[in-house]
């Protein structure tokens, strides 16, 4: 993570969530999660709602197909999915 604030300076509720995720998963928390939990009223909360609706909401596409679209798009963007 290039921005130290987004790496380390989450507010208390989000910091607790990050700690919980780390403990339960036994792994380093992915940067995308840290980004979504950093100042969630600015971006993360609405982004999660948007993602949930698009990726899991009612759709003619199955969840698997949608995940495949996302993975393919990330590949084209040279972004690890």
């Amino acid at each position: 993570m290039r921005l130290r604030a987004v790496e380390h300076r989450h507010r208390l509720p989000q910091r607790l969530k990050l700690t919980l995720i780390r403990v339960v998963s036994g792994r380093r928390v992915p940067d995308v999660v840290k980004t979504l939990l950093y100042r969630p009223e600015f971006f993360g909360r609405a982004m999660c709602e948007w993602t949930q609706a698009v990726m899991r909401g009612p759709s003619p596409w199955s969840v698997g197909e949608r995940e495949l679209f996302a993975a393919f798009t990330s590949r084209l963007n040279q972004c690890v999915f």
Partner: protein
Amino acid sequence: MGDPGGRYAAYTARLVDGVLSARGHTPSALRRAVLERAFGPHPLSKPVTSSPLSGTERGTGGEDALAAYVDKVARHAYKVTDDDLAALQRAGHSDDALFEVTVSAALGAALGRLERGMAALRGESSPPVPLSATRRGGTRD
């Protein structure tokens, strides 16, 4: 902007509203300018409005560096390096300001691609996208 009548319009509107209007470390006008710059050419060849980043406020080294960063995030974010961020931090941009600029650029770029994709599905033509121009030319980077 972006999927105005679509199924996810309300979600998109809330997302854009948060990024542009939430209290932050950068002026809302700057975030809007970044988002519009990253959005890229509109479908239907709507003339591009001049933004603070590309118009009158430009000219100082700092503005140019920030504009170059916005373009990099929008066109090929994988090319962003530690040095890019370090240089912007040295120029006085805080982590929170850079976070807001980065998110605004990424959101603008995403909405632009979505809108041009939807326009293509509707059978409308779009102006050429800078990304494809740079891919072909390969000289801009």
